[in-house]
């Protein structure tokens, strides 16, 4: 056992209102500067949709992440490290600016300086790359709220896998939001891709950083990262990425994106894991086993053996305490409601997600049944407006069972707590039906519903 500590995040997509405050505060703090105009360390995608950069999840095209060789060994999908080193001067497989978007501004000053003229002054868009007039036709969030859906949504690589379930018709509309930052993976493909060894994982907290002095701008990391969360600063010629706001984390502050999240859906905490298990976990043959394998890497911070091993590994006592009160551990391992994003990329991502529950009852209600009956709530999971298959392609390599289980637990929490809300005795059977106790449900409710600042971070 080699105990290491990892700073991790869970986002409860069921609470995300798609406001993009996280994106804006992050951009203002970190990337509103020359060379990173197009860069959003944190972005929010409307699903179904193409994401940013568009279609990044189509690894047949973008070749990000890891793959298993026939011998069961882990290999960078883009061609393995030897090829990587051998083709160091070749143009890497990476999105073009048009796949991100061409950043722009406007000639705002003309509003004030316009001479007397025939028409009302207007500020026209100007490219921030060329300085010329431009015709805006794509952005980092072009398909927000299903904008352009009939033309854009068919290009969603995730949807392509479940397309027979989805009709782009008014009555069947669904959408949810997917906020994304760097995954700070346990098995980062970006770091493995870097010919210069400039990308490293911090020993003490696992934050993945680009050494700005060592980066030589090969951009192999951009290719390697299947989430496309390493960006090329075209001014400095260096790679840049989300830093998990380490200057804040180090002084006990949450990341900017988490603290400014008005949906109060982001949780940050320390997770202890066994570094010796990571490679094996990332190499399990069946993609559907990756979730369990990664969960098994995490160490129970309350286990005295783990505590001793952690201290032996030089992890400070207060860090162990932090791991014990970590909401991440609770959500991933106690309540098992958080799931990793695209485990099939085999990078062992460390930003996990609670899938969105709602709206649940709509279809059931059409049958005239009482929507508040706990049994019906559970039945409804199978007829969710958001297809479970779509969520499974995001979080469980296509396995619907874990997603369904999470949604059942969220639904059970609502039923159980309604009894209390209305002054009735809660029914323990509701908890039992989803493999929990009433106390479990109340604990999960405290974390998800009350979500006090001190308990989120």
């Amino acid at each position, binding site marked *: 056992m*080699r105990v290491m500590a990892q700073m991790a995040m869970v986002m409860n997509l069921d*609470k995300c*209102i*798609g*406001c993009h*405050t996280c994106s*804006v505060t992050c951009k203002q*703090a970190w990337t509103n500067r020359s060379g990173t105009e197009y860069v959003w360390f944190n972005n929010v995608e409307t699903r179904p949709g193409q994401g940013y950069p568009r279609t990044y999840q189509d690894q047949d095209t973008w070749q990000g992440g890891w793959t298993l060789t026939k*011998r069961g060994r*882990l*290999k960078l999908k883009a061609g*393995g*490290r*030897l090829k990587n080193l051998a083709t160091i001067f070749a143009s890497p497989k990476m999105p073009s600016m048009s796949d991100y978007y061409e950043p*722009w501004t*406007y000639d*705002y000053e003309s*509003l*004030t300086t*316009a001479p*007397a003229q025939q028409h*009302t*002054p*207007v*500020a026209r868009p100007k490219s921030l790359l060329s300085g010329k007039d431009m015709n*805006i036709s794509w952005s980092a*969030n072009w398909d927000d709220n*299903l*904008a*352009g859906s*009939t033309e854009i949504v068919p290009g969603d690589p995730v949807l392509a896998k479940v397309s027979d379930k989805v009709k782009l*018709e*008014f009555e069947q*509309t*669904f*959408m*949810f939001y997917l906020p994304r930052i760097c995954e700070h993976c346990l098995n980062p493909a970006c*770091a493995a891709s870097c010919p210069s060894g400039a990308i490293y*994982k911090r020993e003490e907290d696992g934050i993945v*950083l680009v*050494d700005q*002095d060592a980066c030589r701008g090969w951009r192999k990391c951009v290719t390697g990262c299947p989430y496309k969360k390493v960006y090329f600063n075209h001014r400095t010629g260096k790679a840049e990425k989300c*830093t998990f*706001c*380490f200057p*804040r984390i180090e002084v006990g502050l949450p990341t900017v994106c988490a603290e*400014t999240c008005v949906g*109060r859906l982001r949780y940050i905490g320390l997770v202890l894991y066994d570094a*010796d298990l990571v*490679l*094996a976990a990332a190499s399990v043959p069946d993609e559907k086993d990756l979730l369990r394998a990664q969960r098994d890497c995490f160490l129970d911070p309350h286990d005295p053996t783990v505590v001793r091993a952690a201290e032996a590994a030089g992890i400070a006592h207060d860090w162990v305490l932090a791991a014990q009160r970590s909401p991440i551990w609770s959500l991933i391992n106690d309540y098992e409601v958080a799931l990793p994003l695209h485990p099939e990329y085999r990078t062992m991502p460390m930003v996990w997600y609670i899938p969105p529950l709602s*709206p649940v009852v709509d279809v059931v*209600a059409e049958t005239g049944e009482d929507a508040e009956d706990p049994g019906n709530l559970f039945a409804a999971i199978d007829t969710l407006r958001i297809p479970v298959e779509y969520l499974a392609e995001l979080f469980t390599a296509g396995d619907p069972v874990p997603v369904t289980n999470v949604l059942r637990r969220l639904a059970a*929490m*609502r039923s159980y707590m*309604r009894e209390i*809300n209305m002054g009735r005795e809660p029914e323990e059977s509701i908890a039992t039906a989803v493999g929990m106790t009433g106390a479990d449900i109340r604990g999960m*409710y405290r974390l*998800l*519903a009350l979500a006090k600042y001190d308990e989120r971070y």
Partner: protein
Amino acid sequence: MTTQQTPPPGLDTGIVEGLLKARRFFKPKEVSADLRTLHQKGGRDADTFYRDRWAHDKVVRSTHGVNCTGSCSWKVYVKDGIITWEAQQTDYPSAGPDRPDYEPRGCPRGAAFSWYTYSPTRVRYPYVRGVLLEMYREAKARLGDPVLAWRDITGDPERSKRYKAARGKGGLVRAGWGEAVEMIAAAHVATIADHGPDRIAGFSPIPAMSMVSHGVGSRFYSLIGGAMLSFYDWYADLPVASPQVFGDQTDVPESGDWWDAGYLIMWGSNVPVTRTPDAHWMVEARYRGQKVIAVAPDYADNVKFADEWLAPVPGTDGALAMAMGHVVLKEFFVDRRTPYFVDYARSYTDLPFLIRLEPDGEGYVPGKFLTAADLPPGTPGRGEHDEFKTVVLEESTGAPVVPNGSLGFRFGEAGAGKWNLDLEGVAPALSVADAASAAAGPGAVPDAVPVTLPRFDTPDGAAAEIVRGVPVRRVGAHLVTTVFDLLLAQYGVGRDGLPGKWPTGYDDATSPCTPAWQEAITGVPARKAAKIGREFAANAEESNGRSMILMGAGTNHWFHSDAIYRAFLTLTTITGSQGRNGGGWAHYVGQEKVRPLTGFTQYANALDWSRPPRHMIQTAYWFLHTDQFRYDAFTADELSGRPGGRWAGMTTADILAQSARLGWSPSYPTFDRSSLQVVDDAEAAGQDVGTYVPAQLKSGDLRFAAEDPDAPENFPRVLGIWRSNLLGSSAKGDEYFLRHLLGTDHSVNASETPADKRPRDVVWRDEAPAGKLDLLFTLDFRMTSTTIFSDIVLPAATWYEKYDLSSTDMHPYVNSFNPAIAPPWQARTDFEAFHNIAAEFSEQARAHLGTRKDLVAVPLTHDTPDALATPSGIVKDWKFGECEPIPGRTMPKLVVVERDYTAIADKMRSAGPLLAELGATTKGITFDLAHEVDLLRDLNGPARGGVAEGRPALEQDRQVCEFILSLSGTTNGHLATAGFHTLEQRTGQPMADLAAEHEGKRIRFADTQAAPTPVITSPEWSGSESGGRRYSAFTINVERLKPWHTLSGRQSFYLDHDWMSEIGENMPIYRPPLNMAVLFGETPVGERADGTAGTTIAVRYLTPHNKWSIHSEYQDNLLMLSLSRGGPAVWMSNLDAAKIGVSDNDWIECVNRNGVVVARAIVSHRMPEGTVYMHHAQDRLIDVPLSEKSGKRGGIHNSLTRIMMKPTHLVGGYAQLSYAFNYIGPTGNQRDEVTLIRRRSQEVQY
């Protein structure tokens, strides 16, 4: 233990492993044992860039100061004297251990605000249009005086036309502050001298969000006698149903109270977008087992959270609500009497009160409330103001009883201690059929009679009638029934033995208001409507009223929104959910609670120096002054329940003029003569104005300006705008503003009213004026349509560069603004700018104005005895000899205010004597402020010089913050307690204990600088927060038996004013959207046509809030534009797009009679067919090309709308239907509009 068959996990090839192993030896980082990755310990040099970027010098608390209800406290980061970014504060006092907290309030728009600080759209210097500045300099050089120069230019038609026609077409040049302020002051002085102060207006909305910034300008206008324009009604955010039903402007729960609801309907309220910082309460309450319903025509952001989604046809929400009401009334009142609901209805609603039935043809129509005046002398409760005391039947005896609490008990001597809801043991009969028949008079009395009720559910919205019966009794000479009985008839809930036409069941689609009936109108399945209505009520029954409706602009911005809302309020009221934590209405549309209300009102209206101020209903102001009345193509009776009635031949302009002359609505300019001149003339005639003016009016020698708005003497002359973008945002009928008010280029396509449909009473002048306004000046920190069209632009400080106060409905705290930096370039705070203007004005006034007497015509005012002016709401017009013009009764009150125009600046900067002399009155409660003013003098220090000498200083913005906090009950426990003691005397109920826990607490500005500060329960508001409760409206009314400020003192289902009867809205009723095809000849929605310019389709044109620009920032913000489509856009259904060959992001053109919009199409299947959205406040400044249709700049979202005033919004002088600022007035609704859309040439020109 290891499995020998499977090779150990590893990386791809051995050669690579070798290479990577070697890396261990020459890298400072540590390669992981399995060679996958590098770790690094210690040594952070490589991180320096990000560490440096994070480093900052200070963090300053501030917020965003206009419109936004968020009132979110922000951390503004400053590095090297430069604002770098902002993030939300998280230090709100906890909302309680068992519920979520308010942190971190904010949204992406607020987070993007700091972009403005150094952006290229920032206004850095004062600007004046070059052509005007040249004229001014020339004239001043020639005449040697600013006022003479201004008069010289504006008095010359040729020069005047020249600079007005140049408005909006560039050519702004820099000027100094001194010169710009001099011109502004000169325009004011000249206008007051030549035309009167009421020809000047100021506009700045929503004071709650920055009270000092709003108040300082308002104070200036109030001191000089200018009119402050309203905003709540103008924005169509005022739910007129609130004054109608509650007698209250708007009072709603804080968002933390959503948590308490067991059942929550979001109805036309897209919470994640429009209440972003509050949305989490809804999201989280679901985990508590709250059931959530979304009613939205499109798959809006909030639908994602809902358990059920109802998607009615836009504007038909009233029908859905009526059908739900039908189900609730039938199942919870008729099939069985739900005890909780019945008890609530008896105590807190007008349902048991008696209505007189009037013979009409073979049946009857509902008439007026039976009042104590209809009962024999000596009846208990009779004595004074009997015409305003409503009556019930005692259930057990059948005797008429006059319960406490109606308006008749509110103001007189005899009512003291009796203005309360204590029924004193009387059990009012809900239905007259429930009452014992002892009260039946002599002679045969039928058990029931047919009544004729209006209906508007015809396809074109025209009036029709339906006959349904009610049980009756006789009281004296009157045949009466209860409001409850009438309501059942209105909702089509039958009972055995009643005459008339009733539905056969829920599935009867022919008869209003069944679930099946609504399905044909709304498209919502009948079964679903019934189910949601039933669940809503069942939840309320089980939880004692914890059923809530969040209602938003989607239902509140329609012409008939008051009718829609009354149907909603019926649901929340009959289920006993009003005045309950977790229940009731939650109207979140521009509602902005100035929690420290009393202090703010005194400051902003300058009530410490002179009373009353001039307050104007803005919708009516622009209806006349932008000449939109000249394009009306219908008469007012087309809207009424019985066409051909009292409004036959009258246009909306005639209705408005009548409302003005009867004193119902304010009207500025008031007379066709200067308000200063009228006083001089009266003095010259040796009469006081109270004698002189009515006589002059009667003779016709003096006329109301509203009766001839196009006469040059009745033009508005000067308009000052701050904290607002009128011409790029709220101006319904924007193109008419450009044409008539400003006199510049426009895209109006409409024709003027044909001769046979023109106003009856209002003068029609053959030539429509162009360029009525002499001066438009704006303070702003960014360029907008308003600055672009302004004659003078002053550079304003942003929200991060000043001190101020903010509060909201949405949370219970008072927040502060603090300057992160000094205003850069030549920017100044609004506070300083208006003090500069006032100083120069006072100086110029010495030669041109001196001290003058000003006649202020004041409308009959709510929460005063004026509400007793019109017994039974029977309308009489002195103009037609139906009564005498009596100021304060049948016409406006006339008050002469002496104004020393040379002392305006001194009054601006000090607290005047009237605070101590007269106290301050808020909602009928007078606070004694003498002691607090003394304390304020000590706190702020005394001012020196002139009339300010020795008075509490208001020379700095912070001192004004102290003024506001000191003089309000919510922030001063002494005043709250004293106010409750005052109220106790009137109600006879204990109340002061509500504030007792905070009696010693005085919130100072420093408290708000330290953290958001919770306020104190005060009689200024209707909810109790004692003991840390969440705020919910009317909990004091329910728990302490304090009457609502209505005729009956109860929540009012029935409105008996003549005009409410005329329009057919005595009770809640379904009224469809206006039919623009019938009224204006627009193409019916859904019609496709092939024209020379391409195929068009007619669609409903809605302007909901924009996800990327609301309130805390604006459409031009680069961050927000980068996250959206980067320019003007119209959302449309893929089905509609296909009909006209439009692809996503194509350029389209929208054209109707009001104007033109050029934008890009956003095509999405989440939009319903037949409806498009052009999100609100898309200005013409960002990537708007020239229109193919007009050849001019392609317009703003409001280029396709226009003002449509509903006559009943102009009712006044009667009970709760009496005027107060932003309390009552015609709404600037805009959702009934339609437009044609087509794909245009994709080659655009700018």
